[in-house]
């Protein structure tokens, strides 16, 4: 085990939280959350559609407000925090990144499925050219082993990533599995880049996995206030801050203020807090992309089929982040089967 070190927390309430809010944040909510996080001395605040830049769509849900204007509002509100954006190549483009940078975003987080890092160099090159800080995101990291994941991290670092995250998009990694992946990345890229961890609460392990990640050399961790995020939500930023302080790992966050941010700013406007219900647990158990939850719930109502059946089948099919359209297809298939049986 390496010596405890400082960990930097990136708050993703205003990005991953979009999944739980059906991407309907108002400008007022964005300003209030940025203000409160900045006040609590959170270093980095991510602001984008839940599926990243350009995510506003039929497939993922339309944003309430124009995302570039929202990024500009967040930049305007932040005094010391950096504003980060997420970009999924294949959905967002270099052009989207340029617009976000022009609006004041200074951290580019480029996300690919864990086996597809070689679609990202174009976007890392653009981020570097724009002078942005760069972070790579290897999503659904449970789908491949530690050694393979480390090779993908290498591709991102060679393309310009200054940090690569193990992203447990399904909340499916169980303790040692998260640990092993973080360790593999640290030994592959640790001399040139940082390693990060992004957890989900589907099996209630977001915080535990994050602590293990840091104890194994990760220096960046993601959270969201009130766990506001896909599936059963993200590792709650306020619990990360409290837990790391208790075990003597400095995050720089003011615990009292971040607790206030969660309780007084976010909780009042959230219509439904993320919870580890049957659907979310199945996501962790079957390794399903957390953002699929609300889409599966809607398809379940529309086609009168059980949400956990949809999620289980989506997991069996090996669908990856971005394939929200396949949820409707799966629901149609289940409905057709039910008709035949009935």
């Amino acid at each position, binding site marked *: 085990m390496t010596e405890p070190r400082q960990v930097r927390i990136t708050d993703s309430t205003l990005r991953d939280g979009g999944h739980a809010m059906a991407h309907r944040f108002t400008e007022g909510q964005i300003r209030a959350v940025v203000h409160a996080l900045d006040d609590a001395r959170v270093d980095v605040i991510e602001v984008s559609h839940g599926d990243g830049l350009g995510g506003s769509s039929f497939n993922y849900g339309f944003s309430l407000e124009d995302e570039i204007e929202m990024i500009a509002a967040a930049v305007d509100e932040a005094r010391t925090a950096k504003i980060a954006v997420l970009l999924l190549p294949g959905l967002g483009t270099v052009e989207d990144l340029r617009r976000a940078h022009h609006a004041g975003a200074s951290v580019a987080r480029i996300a690919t499925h864990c086996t597809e890092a070689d679609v990202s160099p*174009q976007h890392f090159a653009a981020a570097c050219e724009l002078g942005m800080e760069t972070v790579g995101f290897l999503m659904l990291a449970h789908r491949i082993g530690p050694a393979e994941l480390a090779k993908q991290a290498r591709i991102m670092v060679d393309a310009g990533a200054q940090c690569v995250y193990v992203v447990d998009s399904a909340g499916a990694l169980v303790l040692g599995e998260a640990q092993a992946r973080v360790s593999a990345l640290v030994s592959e890229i640790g001399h040139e880049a940082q390693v990060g961890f992004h957890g989900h609460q589907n099996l209630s392990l977001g915080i535990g996995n994050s602590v293990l990640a840091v104890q194994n050399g990760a220096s960046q961790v993601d959270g969201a206030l009130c766990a506001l995020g896909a599936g059963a939500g993200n590792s709650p930023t306020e619990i990360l801050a409290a837990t790391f302080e208790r075990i003597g790992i400095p995050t720089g966050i003011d615990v009292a203020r971040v607790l206030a941010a969660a309780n007084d700013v976010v909780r009042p406007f959230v219509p439904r807090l993320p919870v580890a219900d049957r659907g979310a647990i199945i996501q962790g158990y079957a390794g399903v992309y957390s953002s699929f939850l609300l889409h599966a719930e809607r398809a379940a109502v529309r086609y009168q089929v059980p949400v956990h059946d949809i999620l289980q089948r989506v997991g069996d099919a090996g669908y*990856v982040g971005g394939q929200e359209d*396949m949820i409707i*297809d799966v629901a149609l*298939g289940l409905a057709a089967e039910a008709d035949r049986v009935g």
Partner: protein
Amino acid sequence: MRQLSAAIVGPGNIGTDLLVKLLRSEVLRLHSMVGVDPASDGLTHARKLGVPTSADGVDWLLAQEDLPDLVFEATSARAHLANAPRYEAAGITAVDLTPAAAGPFVCPPVNLGGVADAPNLNMITCGGQATIPIVSAVSSVVPVAYAEIIASIASRSAGPGTRANIDEFTQTTARAIEEVGGAARGKAIIILNPVDPPMIMRDTVFCAIPPDADTAVITGSIHKMVAEVAAYVPGYMLRADPQFDAPRDIWNGMARVAVFLQVQGNGDYLPPWAGNLDIMTAAAARVGEQLCGARVAA
């Protein structure tokens, strides 16, 4: 019917799959297969099938006394941009399967009639060939303010060129959804899925339609178009009937039609799951055959 002769430049996976399709054609005569590497699998395959080959590139092709009427280019955007003016100067019509887009976009069942005289035709993208016919089927019966497509392909069917410049796919396809498909605004998304065994290409088309649109007319138009595409891509099919959703405020008061497609390849040179590559070569072959018809009629 008089035959047009056609050369294939670029003996990679796409060029070789196209070779197999063109050999089946009754109206196109294969002139040659041209590459730059004598050891390439594609050239070897062509030789075995009795097709003249050369590894001396376009220089060899243009030095022939008997020039082809058509050239199908399956190299790279950069190579095609260099070659395109040379084909045109030699009076050869180019069917471009690269992302170069030197000439107008063509999607055979939608707009070939309008661009058949162009010296250079661009085949858009795989996702474009799969989805633009559907956007057009909808926009031909109701106004489409916005159309969005999601193309999911097997990771193994995405080559290094596609991966290095994936924005080219999303931007080119989005533009063609507007210019060829007839949507006021287009958006394209591509997903690479590494599952094993590889997934068959899937495409989803969402169109914003007026709240009072006649769903039966739209459904009829879509079914008709699917049959037209299936005539040259036998593995092109609807997964389910078009799905209609009632108008919503968050859709600016518009209703929505969703169309779920599967594109299974013909297994000519590439495996059946590579429907994305099959639909490009099948559409290109279709363009070649229809150009024959157009030129003979003229």
